[in-house]
């Protein structure tokens, strides 16, 4: 297996060569990937907002933003600046502490989950042993934030919205976790790096989507529900609940909810591409290409090219999924709350259980194909 470029190793070695002790060199390295990830996540908001506006406009035969920045790319910046300058109002008789903490609790876990998103063999902040489980655990913190925001706003719409958000998140977490479990069963590990490596054998034919088609669909539906995207955006259904738990929020606290939802969308798309679409792997394995061209895999140029190809592939897969989400948004009508819970508990949960059992059975019968 190709080890890929080791940025951390070479950076630390360069600092040690400059005369720093190895402990200091490692400490200097530590914040760099985290900062980079924060920047990547923040930039992804702008891209997602731009895509959302332009694709929505395309689906409705409009033009979309045009004047803010080149082809309207800075529209999200304009929105953000406007939100920053708005008065920050805390409603009367609300709980000011919960009201202030709510949005932060929604946003922070989403950013934390970027810890385990891999862009290459060594291009990940930490290759945790619990990997994907960390994401599941962190994503179940968000409903607490929604509940806090809804409860503290002193507004019945906010409260109902918060309760709905919590109910939705909790009920869709189970099929989500079960379909992840099926993938984990095939990988024999929770680490996201292992999950991608397990798929990278036969190019795009080895991707998990062929072995887990049902799991893929269930995961995608549950991820949409977790992100509160249409057709599952009923915690903020304006026709019924004004804006749900966001009703009383203004300024940057309101903006934080939006930041959270867009980063969460991007994160879910990345995780789907890691779990089911082979992460950073190119549809044709890089080893095959280098073999055909007759170049050594460990040549520095090839290493650099394959690393950048990996990053581009991960992002392409993720943005294709984001595109699909936005298209779905204008295709599917919003479901009612009872339909939502019916779908979650009566359809996705049993189907994902069957899927898990089936995967276990297939693993026992065909260990070579299902990671026995």
């Amino acid at each position: 297996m190709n080890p890929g470029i080791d940025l951390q190793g070479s950076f630390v070695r360069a600092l040690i060569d400059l005369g720093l002790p190895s402990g200091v060199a490692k400490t200097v390295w530590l914040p760099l990937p985290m900062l980079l990830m924060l920047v990547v996540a923040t930039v992804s908001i702008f891209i997602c907002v731009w895509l959302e506006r332009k694709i929505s406009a395309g689906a409705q035969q409009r033009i979309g933003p045009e004047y803010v920045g080149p082809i309207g790319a800075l529209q999200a910046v304009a929105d953000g600046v406007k939100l920053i300058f708005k008065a920050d109002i805390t409603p009367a008789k609300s709980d000011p502490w919960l009201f202030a903490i709510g949005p932060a609790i929604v946003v922070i876990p989403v950013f934390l989950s970027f810890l385990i998103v891999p862009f290459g063999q060594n291009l990940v902040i930490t290759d945790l042993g619990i990997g994907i489980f960390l994401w599941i655990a962190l994503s179940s913190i968000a409903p607490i934030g929604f509940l806090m925001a809804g409860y503290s706003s002193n507004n019945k719409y906010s409260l109902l919205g918060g309760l709905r958000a919590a109910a939705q998140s909790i009920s869709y977490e189970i099929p989500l976790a079960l379909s992840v479990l099926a993938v984990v069963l095939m990988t024999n590990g929770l680490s996201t790096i292992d999950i991608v490596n397990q798929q990278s054998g036969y190019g795009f034919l080895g991707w998990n989507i062929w072995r887990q088609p049902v799991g893929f669909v269930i995961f995608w539906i549950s991820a949409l529900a977790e992100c509160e995207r249409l057709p599952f955006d009923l915690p903020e259904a304006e026709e019924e609940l004004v804006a749900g738990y966001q009703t009383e929020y203004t300024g940057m606290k309101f903006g934080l909810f939006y930041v959270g939802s867009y980063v969460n969308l991007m994160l879910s798309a990345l995780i789907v591409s890691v779990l089911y679409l082979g992460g950073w792997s190119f549809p044709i394995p890089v080893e095959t290409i280098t073999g055909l061209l007759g170049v050594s895999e460990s040549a520095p140029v090839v290493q650099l090219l394959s690393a950048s190809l990996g990053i581009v592939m991960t992002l392409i897969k993720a943005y294709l999924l984001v595109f699909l989400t936005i298209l779905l948004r204008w295709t599917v009508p919003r479901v009612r709350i009872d339909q939502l819970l019916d779908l979650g508990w009566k359809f996705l949960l049993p189907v994902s259980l069957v899927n898990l059992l089936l995967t276990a059975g297939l693993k026992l019968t065909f260990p070579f194909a299902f990671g026995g």
Partner: protein
Amino acid sequence: MLNFLKQVGDYAKETAQAAKFIGQGLSVTFDHMKRRPVTVQYPYEKLIPSERYRGRIHFEFDKCISCEVCVRVCPINLPVVDWEFNRETKKKTLNHYSIDFGVCIFCGNCVEYCPTNCLSMTEEYELASYDRHNLNYDNVALGRLPYKVTNDPMVTPMREFGYLPKGVMDPHDLPAGTQRAGRLPKDILAELETQKAKEDAKKASVEAAE
């Protein structure tokens, strides 16, 4: 057992059908992405109002005979006609006339029924103002002529569907001199007049022969 299997089968069939319908919907939305936007960039581009556009009402003070027909045919008796009877000429003299466009529904009944044609519909539609009382137009305001979209150097005039050639849906980048579908009213009128003149001449010649 068989019943249960049948239930499962029906459920699976329903699920497949739902997935099929969602796929069809997705293909419809995807198809819309490649269509050209219908946007008219409003302050910079404006549609040319159609010939029968019912915009702000124009009033010609000197033609009005204060008959108040406009008030009678108005659904809410909106026009205010302030006149005095002049005993010497035995005629009504009009002092003031006003219509409140905040209340008017632009039905055009007054224009239809005005015996002296002193009321007419214009193509002006930009009536926004900061105070609703500004919408109460008096006879001076009603007498102003609207600014034509085609004469405004700041605005690119766009043709409405009715003015476009047959089969064309997009008013942008039309070649110069393109005609709309059908014939122009002035051509039809000219033809009718020549036809009438011909018939008259025929009639006259027949009469002369008799």
